[in-house]
């Protein structure tokens, strides 16, 4: 607490110039109490009568789809909304009428089995969501229980008006009104990553009147009334007033702490609960997750419609024939088929009313031929997908050990979509990078220091097979790594810098790093080690670097900075105090920050660090000694994917400073609208004639394996777009770091940084700005497109970089298609400074504009829109904050797992599901068509060839399990080969395995099988005696034989179609066939009232007859012959890509690099991004 106490003495509001004009909110506040502004909160009195009548929502948040009461009706409704299921329900109901060709029970039981299986699955999924809710709702927070006592309670119990105490690094449980904090001026730092994805800390400040409430006891007597706006989704606005001690105080967003943001750098705060549960801004912002369906499934629906078409056609053909023959039964009063007694028949067969009979018969036929539509398809697919998800979750290679986080497929219905991704839209911070900065290199006085290697260099080195890199990186075990510091250079470290040629400059350089910042040191009481809390990770990296190199910043007061540094001459550690005179803050237009300090010698120094483009122009004539070298180093750093800053300093004369200070204070205190510009001008005048010291290079550390992963994805032909809220420079740096950009790539930049627009902005004419901006964006886009078309066919790769403001115009209706065309032509696209909404819009544009599958990946709440909009949303669960994960479809811990997720699981799932669906249709067409063919020889009367239970159980027992096994386990190519030949992924993107060609091919295969089975069985059995005893085969025997053949054919077909035979496959395939025989035995042994014509059919009639066995040998083989011939021809002469890989594996040539390369090259289009491409580009240059 001592450090807290020390901190309390600091008034950071002095360091920061708060820019929000607090006084100018008058007109908005006048609305309070009116419509839309009706909320009244009685602080600290949640139990009072007035609070009671308001009846605000509690803080319980529920994300479940069903409750106990609504589960049954709602989920049933969901089930029968599916056309196929509804159809089966209708036929199930019709089965109870005399129209049914089979018994009602046998028709309804499969439906019940299938529907209940789906419902069980739904229930389990919803239960999981419930568990998650319970976890969130039961988090603990300290709440005021009266008379100054704070006690823990669950989040869900919070009520409007409660006063809570939130400790450091805790999440805010509700939207809170900040009352006070551990700091004396009642400020606190808030991390809003979960809301907007911005990583820098936000500063919030309470009203001055409440800031003294710093103790638990002081809260007990606090009473106030807050009137404010109603719950709404706007994160950045808040209007309210607080009535405290008879005084009205206006409230602004500055006092509002939002749920799911996090308290940082502040020991504790007190706050009043304003909005709870569903009223909080975060929840208001969250839209219900859109239900996503995969492309394959949508196509499957189309196939089902086609099959419905076939079904209706068959049924009507049957009915027409039936109508004709029925009408024919009585001809001029003479009965033809007298044995049917047509003269005294009910309506269904009445020749006198043949048309009506035909219509009734149509329904019968629908019921009979509905075996064409696989009833178990949906449920099988769902089961398969759940199991696939289990495998995704279980994959040890997607398990992040450090955080104990496995991959987590939250929705299972998009698995196969993972195999079809065309474009990846990625967030940057926290997704590609881990948002930790490491000081890695620097250039001081024209000499480059730092022997560390960046991730990019390492992976390029690995690619090259260069042993140097590995050797150097291998030797870093001697010292424990310091977070944020990865600098290795014996010339500088351990005080060796003293002996370097420009020792004085090196000293100045690190002194600048130790002094020029806004970080706060925190001394660990035990070890004496100094830790820092900084606004941004790069700043922390600088201070840490300075500390590690002997310039330990250890104390900050309001007016001074203390540094313990190595004295150059004596070689001893000395404490030096720098009097802090001014802080010239960083902002995005200045792109630099400076401090003005007075050192112990009394000299006034201006220390400045900033981006290269603003810094070089500010150098003094005599300060450019090392400019050339530094620039060269900078280029190298940028290519290695580093963030660079230029450091420079200047000595100020006493009078010069005094003059500046007077102007600066005046500018700071001015209240006019152009206060910002005034400050800028003043600072601009002093930050000039600088003397260059050098440059720093900080690695915005990419997550492990990101470059590799991006390279693999690029090789797989997936386009990668980066959408980030970051600055353009940072984004470009990262683009370089992860090889999305490279030297020699043509960059098409779209931004609004033109002088005319700046002029217009000064004038403030909004319409003119909009017009000029739009014109500029349009111009840049058309120019880019012209460049692109001019070089089309050339080897040049283009990169598109666009910033948020321009994006706003580019996404307008009339420009967006042009923009999309340009973007699609570029190898990589980077959108920087984009808002969450823009991210979602871009995603939508790509999704609907190209019609291809998009995948969005992100980690923060600012990515939620994008994740929901994309076909697949992937959340990164590695960092804190669950917003993205909660709205994602699949959560992984690291970006690098995307490679395995897409290339291995995606490919497998796509292949499995598409083969599975094809196979499903195949087996049902085979079965359904034999029924139809039999009908044709039974004058379409609607008599099935098979026993009722044979019919009913076909889809449930005798053919389903092998398909499920295929859907879960089949692998065309092992994981190793999927990764080795990423191009196999294109099979999914181009939808080769689920093209209409292939689907129709399978259907034709089904047709062939059905025809062969039916005619062979019919010819072999009828009308002759079929056994030695001389007995002839009746309907029962023909039916059972045909059915046996079908069971064999569909299962053997499965065995032929799969390429991965584990024990499980054997078990299911042979098990299904064996089960059929067992079923025949068991069912045949039941009493004849139940088994009807299947009674003892196997034991007595089929098994003793050699012809039965001969038929069941001959027919399946003949039925499979066409498929076998076709596939062996194609495999040999026109192999698909996965088949080529099977060849490679089979021939054991996977270790033959040349051969593999040849395969890789086949139908491979050159990759334009990734380091493979970078290497290729480099070698090209060398060759030239």
């Amino acid at each position, binding site marked *: 607490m001592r450090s807290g106490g020390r901190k309390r003495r600091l008034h950071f509001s002095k360091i920061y110039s708060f820019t929000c004009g607090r006084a100018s909110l008058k007109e908005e506040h006048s609305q309070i109490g009116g419509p839309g502004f009706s909320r009244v909160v009685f602080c600290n009195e949640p139990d009072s009568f007035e609070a009671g009548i308001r009846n605000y929502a509690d803080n319980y948040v529920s994300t479940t789809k069903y409750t106990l009461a609504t589960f049954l009706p709602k989920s049933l409704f969901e089930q029968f909304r599916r056309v196929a299921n509804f159809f089966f329900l209708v036929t199930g109901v019709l089965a109870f009428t005399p129209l049914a060709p089979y018994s009602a029970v046998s028709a309804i039981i499969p439906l019940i089995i299938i529907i209940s299986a789906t419902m069980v699955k739904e229930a389990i999924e919803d239960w999981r969501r419930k568990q998650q809710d319970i976890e969130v709702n039961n988090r603990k927070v300290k709440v005021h229980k009266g008379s100054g006592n704070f006690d823990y309670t669950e989040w869900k119990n919070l009520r409007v008006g409660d006063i809570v105490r939130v400790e450091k690094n805790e999440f805010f449980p509700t939207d809170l009104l900040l009352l006070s904090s551990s700091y004396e001026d009642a400020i606190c730092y808030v991390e809003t990553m979960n809301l907007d994805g911005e990583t820098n800390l936000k500063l919030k400040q309470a009203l001055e009147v409440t800031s003294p409430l710093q103790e638990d006891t002081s809260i007990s007597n606090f009473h106030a009334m807050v009137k404010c706006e109603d719950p709404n989704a706007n994160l950045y606005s808040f209007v309210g007033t607080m009535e405290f001690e008879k005084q009205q105080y206006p409230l602004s967003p500055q006092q509002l702490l939002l749920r799911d943001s996090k308290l940082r750098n502040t020991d504790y705060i007190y706050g009043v609960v304003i909005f709870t549960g569903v009223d909080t801004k975060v929840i208001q912002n969250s839209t219900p997750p859109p239900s996503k369906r995969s492309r394959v499934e949508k196509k499957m629906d189309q196939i089902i419609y086609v099959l419905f078409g076939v079904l209706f056609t068959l049924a009507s053909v049957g009915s027409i024939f039936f109508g004709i023959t029925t009408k024919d039964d009585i001809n001029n009063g003479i009965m033809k088929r007298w044995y049917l007694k047509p003269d005294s028949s009910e309506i269904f067969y009445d020749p006198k009313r043949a048309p009506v009979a035909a219509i009734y018969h149509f329904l019968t036929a629908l019921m009979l031929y509905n075996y064409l539509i696989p009833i178990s398809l949906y449920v099988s697919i769902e089961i398969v997908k759940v199991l696939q998800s289990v495998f995704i979750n279980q994959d040890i290679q997607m398990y992040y050990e450090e955080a104990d986080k496995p991959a987590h497929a939250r929705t299972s219905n998009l698995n196969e979509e993972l195999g079809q991704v065309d474009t990846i839209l990625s967030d940057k911070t926290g997704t590609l990078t881990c948002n930790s900065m490491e000081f890695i290199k620097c250039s001081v006085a024209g000499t480059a220091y730092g022997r560390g290697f960046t991730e990019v260099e390492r992976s390029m080195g690995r690619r090259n097979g260069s042993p140097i890199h590995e050797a150097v990186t291998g030797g870093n075990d001697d010292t424990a790594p310091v977070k944020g510091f990865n600098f290795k250079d014996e010339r500088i470290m351990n005080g060796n810098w003293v002996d370097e040629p420009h020792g004085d400059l090196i000293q100045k350089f690190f002194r600048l790093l130790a002094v020029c910042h806004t970080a706060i040191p925190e001394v660990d009481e035990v070890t004496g080690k100094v830790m820092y809390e900084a606004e941004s990770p790069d700043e922390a990296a600088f201070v840490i670097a300075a500390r590690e190199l002997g310039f330990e910043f250890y104390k900050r007061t309001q007016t001074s900075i203390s540094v313990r540094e190595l004295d150059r001459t004596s070689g001893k550690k000395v404490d030096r105090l720098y009097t802090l005179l001014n802080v010239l803050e960083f902002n995005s237009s200045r792109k630099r920050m400076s401090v003005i300090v007075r050192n112990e010698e009394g000299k006034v120094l201006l220390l400045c660090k900033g981006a290269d483009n603003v810094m070089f122009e500010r150098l003094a004539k005599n300060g450019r000694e090392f400019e050339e070298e530094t620039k060269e180093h900078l280029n190298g750093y940028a290519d290695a994917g580093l963030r660079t800053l230029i450091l420079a300093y200047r000595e100020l004369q006493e009078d010069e400073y005094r003059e500046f200070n007077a102007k600066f204070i005046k500018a700071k205190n001015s209240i006019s609208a152009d206060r910002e510009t005034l400050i800028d001008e003043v600072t601009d005048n002093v930050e000039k004639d600088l003397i260059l010291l050098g440059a720093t290079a900080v690695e915005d550390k990419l997550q492990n394996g990101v470059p590799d992963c991006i390279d693999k994805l690029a090789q797989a032909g997936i386009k990668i777009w980066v959408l980030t809220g970051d600055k353009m420079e940072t984004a470009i740096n990262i683009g370089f770091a992860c090889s999305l950009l490279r030297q020699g790539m043509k960059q098409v930049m779209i931004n609004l940084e033109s002088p005319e627009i700046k002029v217009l902005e000064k004038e403030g004419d909004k319409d003119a700005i909009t017009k000029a901006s739009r014109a500029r964006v349009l111009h840049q886009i058309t120019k880019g497109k012209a460049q692109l078309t001019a070089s089309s066919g050339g080897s040049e790769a283009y990169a598109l970089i666009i910033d948020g403001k321009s994006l706003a115009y580019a996404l307008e209706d009339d420009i967006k298609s042009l923009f999309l065309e340009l973007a699609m032509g570029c190898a990589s696209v980077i959108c920087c400074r984009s808002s969450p909404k823009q991210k979602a819009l871009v995603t939508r544009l790509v999704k609907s504009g190209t019609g291809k599958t998009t995948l969005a990946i992100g980690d923060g709440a600012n990515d939620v829109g994008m994740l929901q909009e994309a076909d697949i949303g992937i959340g990164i669960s590695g960092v804190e904050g669950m917003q993205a994960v909660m709205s994602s479809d699949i959560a992984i811990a690291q970006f690098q797992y995307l490679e395995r997720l897409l290339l291995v699981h995606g490919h497998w799932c796509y292949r499995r599901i598409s083969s599975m669906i094809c196979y499903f249709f195949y087996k049902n067409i085979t079965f359904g068509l034999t029924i139809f063919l039999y009908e044709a020889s*039974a004058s379409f009367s609607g008599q099935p060839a098979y026993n009722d239970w044979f019919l009913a159980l076909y889809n449930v027992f005798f053919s389903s399990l092998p398909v499920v096994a295929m859907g879960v386990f089949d692998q065309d190519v092992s994981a190793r080969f999927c990764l080795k030949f990423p191009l196999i992924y294109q099979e999914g993107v181009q939808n080769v395995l689920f093209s209409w060609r292939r689907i129709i091919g399978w259907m034709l295969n089904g047709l062939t099988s059905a025809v062969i089975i039916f005619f062979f069985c019919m010819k072999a059995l009828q009308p002759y005696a079929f056994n*030695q*005893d001389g007995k002839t085969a009746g309907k029962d025997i023909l039916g059972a034989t045909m059915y046996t053949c079908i069971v064999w054919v569909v299962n053997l077909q499965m065995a032929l179609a799969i390429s991965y035979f584990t*024990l499980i496959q054997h078990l299911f395939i042979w098990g299904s066939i064996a089960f059929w025989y067992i079923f025949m035995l068991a069912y045949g042994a039941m009493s004849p009232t139940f088994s009807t014509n299947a009674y003892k059919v196997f034991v007595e009639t089929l098994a003793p*007859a050699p012809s039965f066995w001969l038929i069941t040998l001959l027919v399946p083989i003949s039925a499979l012959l066409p498929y076998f011939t076709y*596939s062996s021809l194609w*495999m040999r002469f026109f192999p698909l890509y996965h088949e080529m890989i099977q*060849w490679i594996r089979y021939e054991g040539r996977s270790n033959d690099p040349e051969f593999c390369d040849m395969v890789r090259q086949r139908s491979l289009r050159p990759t334009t991004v990734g380091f493979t491409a970078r290497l290729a580009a480099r070698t090209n240059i060398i060759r030239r």
Partner: protein
Amino acid sequence: MRQIGVCLSPKVSLWFENLSSSLLLGLNLMEVDGGRILKVSSGAQSIPRHSRKHKAFYQFTQQSLPACKPVLTPAWVITTFLLMGVIFIPIGLITLHASENVVEIVDRYDTECVPEAFRSNKVAYIKDNSIPKNCSRYLKVYKHMKAPINIYYQLDNYFQNHRRYVKSKNDRQLLHGLGYNDTGSCKPEESNNGLPIVPCGLIAWSLFNDTYTLIRGRSELKVNRKNIAWKSDRDHKFGKSVYPFNFQNGTLMGGGKLHPRIPLSDQEDLIVWMRTAALPSFRKLYGRIEEDLNADDVVVVNVTNNYNTYSFGGKKKLILSTTGWLGGKNNFLGLACTSVGSSSIFISIVFLLLHMKNPRIL
């Protein structure tokens, strides 16, 4: 699973892969992919007893279970096709031979048994009970026929598989007799004159009732009409104490009558008839001759041509046939087997040629 500290050692997996690939050099046609192996503890410590189980479970969750991955290589394909040829051609020939050995005499008599005078209106003829329906057919035995010789009748264009027809019976009544009253499925043949019919329904009502008497030389050939139905039907579907009742008493006559004193389980022609045929053209067993017929014997068949097939244009045939181990004289199976076999060989040769001519580029 994660708690047990599973870790992968690249060395071990590499070793395993090498091992498996070297093992598999022997297996020409398939490769077993062992995938990665789980290393439970580092070093050469003793492997815990459960490791096999763990390993299997690990392989299962990591989808790397040992599996065979068949590839349709030319060798595979050609061998398979050849094998199929080698199997099916002999089977086909044997089957054909069996079928050739069966002697079958088919005689269509529906037209010939109608006197010339009635040929223009056969329906009237068959419906007129006053006209005698006797008719004689002369069958010449062209080859020695070994007993037992089965006698069949064959009907064509007769839809015993019509849904209305198939449903028109009552299994319980057949088994339990009059005690079972719910005979709704038998409509319109469920009752007559207010009394229930046993056996009810259209199937029974339309019982085939042509009769055949076979005479060789001067003596009548004994036709055994027992044992022509399936045993399970006799024992479990037709009641031993169920006697025909009120059967064929109606105004409209259907087919044959039943002896009211014989229980249904012994009325085998009814049982045979009621096991409905699968297709509109079917044979049913009539009886058996239990003595050999010699070549050039002439068998005179006295037919009572009662059954009406004329109204729907059906044919009636009488068949005498011996049986082989495969049943009747059916060449189809044999032909199909031989053609499947020979086309397999043909395909394998074509494939071989194509394979030789076009080296795989890949």
